[in-house]
């Protein structure tokens, strides 16, 4: 019944927004701009859009609270004015908290004609902070005052959660629980020839696998029950003290200490209409919002019309606060990646983003109706080494010297990628521009390092105390070697085997299996890529307690640097600290940066006015960010 009511509501609301919107003209007979896109997940929502293409549609329909410039610095192009945050210094001389103040501009409305108010901003934050929110926003990871109390719905959550954690950590399972878990794990590991006995109390995998899995499941279950219980016994925490509306235009966000990365999470939020999305919203109930995934409405450049026959249709929002877009109608048609270039050549699409390859560039340069833009990708490729599995630093350094990067990257990408020397996207302001090669390809040096680690070649086998040096390499190259780093690790395998190492190289056809094995620490060396964020904060990946520290790097000095560089907003100071931190990471020899690549956008010059494409595009600022100025021919 609830579902039916919601559906009727959705239909009514979408009808009213599309047909009876105030001040909107009918653009059905205007020429359309057609874009070729990958498949949609049809979650066109300011809160739930997750895949890149859903997000692109969402970006055109919604507007952000704070805008960012080409270098990802906050500016005044958003719905609200940006002010530098205010730091409150505590008694100990350290920054105790930071206050961000955003003031809404005057006269801004949603595309249905209703004004954008501070209530809408507040509503948008409350949805993102909700305990039952399942979308991709990571607002919860910003230390906003009171956000965890809100999420756990308990003012004294710290003690309770700590109690649950320690109870779970000390939990002694019953024999039946152990037997069940052992059987389950055996089934999971069957491919590796593991037996049930191995997971039982006297078996080799008991403590690490069986016991820890039982305890961690108990912790998760108890914590989940705690949250669910808190929500169902009536809502206790109704507000977040760190998010306050000061007046009907101004909102204040207070975070604990300093966090230079916070602005990207608290500023770059879509402001959604409370009147439209908030029907029936109370803490913990987001069904009404999710039900509107197929009928979005916002304050962005375009209005949503429909998704039919694999085509998303949008029309210009006449009330857009930066002025009515010059192109009145936009269509996104789903296509397969392999057809993107041909479809633009044929004029079926005006704009698309094929996977760039050297052959493709050649083909584009030969055709007379295509303009292309190459933009650095926000992220980089790397080869990682697990410092727990390969515990001797000299061995890791030796392995590093066996990685020949340049020929491999050149052969795979041509001019579309270049080798980088530090593990960070070169796009970031923190990337040390003058950095030089740390470990060049040199088999002699490699052997020296192996010898320093106590290895020697006996009977053609590189060994220490009678044990051969052996490494397990994993690469997700579709089982066919199609990966930019494949030639590097293949070279490592050949050079290593020539030296007397045992090298096992696995090319995973199934990417999920690769991530599973990586998380289970079955791989000593692996090839992957990191997506980057505008702020270079390293905590998640390189801090010894960082949750994404797959390298198992553990360096007190590095930890200190990471914390210190988060604790100041001074960019010059931070640059120096990151440069030092990167050198420490390189010296640990746990991560070999491989390449920085570029993304390609192609435009059909028969239909698109090339002069109107926004200039100086960066990874942080694509043509889509200024699409309102673009023109058709």
């Amino acid at each position, binding site marked *: 019944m609830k579902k039916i009511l919601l559906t009727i509501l959705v239909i009514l609301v979408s009808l009213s927004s599309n047909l009876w919107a105030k001040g909107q003209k009918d653009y059905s007979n205007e020429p359309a701009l057609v874009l070729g896109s990958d*498949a949609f997940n049809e979650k066109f929502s300011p809160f739930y859009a997750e895949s890149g293409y859903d997000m692109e549609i969402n970006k055109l329909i919604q507007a952000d609270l704070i805008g960012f410039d080409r270098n990802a610095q906050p500016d005044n192009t958003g719905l609200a004015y940006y002010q530098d945050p205010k730091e409150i210094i505590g008694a100990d001389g350290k920054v105790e908290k930071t206050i961000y103040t955003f003031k809404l501009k005057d006269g801004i409305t949603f595309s249905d004609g209703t004004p954008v108010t501070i209530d809408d901003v507040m509503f948008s934050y409350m949805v993102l902070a909700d305990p039952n929110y399942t979308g991709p926003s990571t607002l919860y*990871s910003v230390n906003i005052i009171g956000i965890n109390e809100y999420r756990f719905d308990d003012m004294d959550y710290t003690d309770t959660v700590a109690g649950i954690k320690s109870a779970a950590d000390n939990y002694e399972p019953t024999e039946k629980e152990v037997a069940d878990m052992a059987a389950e794990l055996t089934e999971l590991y069957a491919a590796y020839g593991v037996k049930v006995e191995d997971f039982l109390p006297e078996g080799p995998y008991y403590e690490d696998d069986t016991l820890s899995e039982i305890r961690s499941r108990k912790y998760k279950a108890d914590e989940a029950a705690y949250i669910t219980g808190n929500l169902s016994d009536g809502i206790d925490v109704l507000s977040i003290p760190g998010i306050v509306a000061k007046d009907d235009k101004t909102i204040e966000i207070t975070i604990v200490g300093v966090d230079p990365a916070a602005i990207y999470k608290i500023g770059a939020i879509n402001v959604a209409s409370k009147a439209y999305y908030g029907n029936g919203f109370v803490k913990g109930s987001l069904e009404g919002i999710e039900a509107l995934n197929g009928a979005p409405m916002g304050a962005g450049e375009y209005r949503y019309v429909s998704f039919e026959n*694999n085509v998303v249709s949008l029309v210009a929002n006449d009330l857009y606060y930066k002025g009515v877009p010059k192109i009145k109608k936009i269509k996104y048609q789903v*296509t397969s990646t392999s057809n993107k270039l041909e*479809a633009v050549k044929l004029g079926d699409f005006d704009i698309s983003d094929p996977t760039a390859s050297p052959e493709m560039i050649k083909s584009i340069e030969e055709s007379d109706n295509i303009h292309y833009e190459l933009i650095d990708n926000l992220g980089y490729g790397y080869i990682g080494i697990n410092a727990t599995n390969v515990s001797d630093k000299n061995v890791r350094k030796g392995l590093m010297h066996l990685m020949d990067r340049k020929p491999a990257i050149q052969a795979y990408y041509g001019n579309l990628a270049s080798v980088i020397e530090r593990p960070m996207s070169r796009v970031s302001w923190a990337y040390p521009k003058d950095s030089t090669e740390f470990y060049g390809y040199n088999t002699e040096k490699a052997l020296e390092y192996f010898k320093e680690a106590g290895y020697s070649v006996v009977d053609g086998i590189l060994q220490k105390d009678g044990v051969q040096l052996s490494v397990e390499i994993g690469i997700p190259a579709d089982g066919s070697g199609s990966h930019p780093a494949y030639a590097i690790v293949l070279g490592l395998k050949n050079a290593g085997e020539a030296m007397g190492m045992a090298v096992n190289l696995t090319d995973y056809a199934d990417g999920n299996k690769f991530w599973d094995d990586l998380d289970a620490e079955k791989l000593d060396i692996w090839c992957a890529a990191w997506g980057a964020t505008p702020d270079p904060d390293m905590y998640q*990946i390189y801090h010894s307690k960082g*949750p994404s520290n797959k390298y198992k790097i553990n360096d007190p000095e590095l930890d200190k640097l990471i914390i210190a560089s988060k604790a100041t907003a001074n960019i010059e100071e931070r640059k120096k600290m990151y440069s030092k931190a990167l050198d420490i990471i390189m010296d640990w020899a746990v991560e070999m940066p491989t390449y920085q690549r570029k993304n390609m956008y192609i435009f059909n010059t028969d239909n698109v006015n090339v002069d109107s494409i926004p200039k100086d595009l960066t990874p942080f600022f694509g043509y889509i960010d200024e699409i309102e100025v673009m023109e058709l021919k």
Partner: protein
Amino acid sequence: MRRLLLSVLILFGVSMIIYTIVRMMPGDYISSITAGNPMVTPEKIARLRMLYGLDTGVVEGYFKWLSQAIRGNFGDSFIYRKPVAEIISSKMWTSFSLAFTAFILEIIIAVPLGIISATRQYSKTDYAVTTVALVGISLPTFFFAAILQRVFSMELGLLPLQGMVTARYDYQGFMLFLDIAKHFILPITVFVITGVGSLMRYSRTNMLEVLNADYVRTARAKGLSEQTVIYKHAFRNTLIPIVTLIGGSLPGLFSGAIITEGIFAIDGLGRTALIALRMGDIPFIMAFNMFLAVLTLLGTIIADILYAVVDPRVRLS
């Protein structure tokens, strides 16, 4: 009645096997949406697993799924966050209209060709038809589709490269129908050429068998014309196995075609299922496979009924 009970039992078995396999796949939906994003904390991942119902063991998870499925509730797809039944019903007619048109064309082409090459066994016509059929069977779908795209849209510009409609124009009514039809010509051609061969070989073999049967010899001995022998006596008997084939192809009409739908960017079930499988969208995979299982069972029942209709020797007991 026994048949129906058995079917229900089979469905249970099938659902159990599929659920176990799906849960055993490496990685799950949460890890595929969070992989490569360093900002997601393990706590959040655990919370997401709980909200998506992935925090249970396989057995518990299966019974949770089953208790809902029995009531007709197959849950919300992880990817689309919409009821799975809604997604299947919105996409299946696209897949069906493609597959059904292709299937009719296949029958129209394959059955007469099969009969011709059987009646003229080892003639030039027979060899030609057989060769063409074998080429069709052996052609990889993606390769053949790429050739068609190159020739008919990139070089000749006669047909659209891909997509379901011409996105640039807002066609309505009959014009929209024509536009969609035009976009479906190449995919249907792929279906027909790659699918017609086996059906043709099948009807040829059947015809040959029938032509060697005693009653055909009797008919000929009676002095009936060759025309009457082939099209009256023999033809009707070759229909029997073909009819059962039609029943068996029922699930295939709805299941969609993973490769062809992908290449031509058609919003059908095959492509959706592939994405769901890759992402670990358990509710969708379960509902989709159960849908196919039901169709398969239904198909065999229909085939049996049709069998009785076309073959007077078979009677439903």
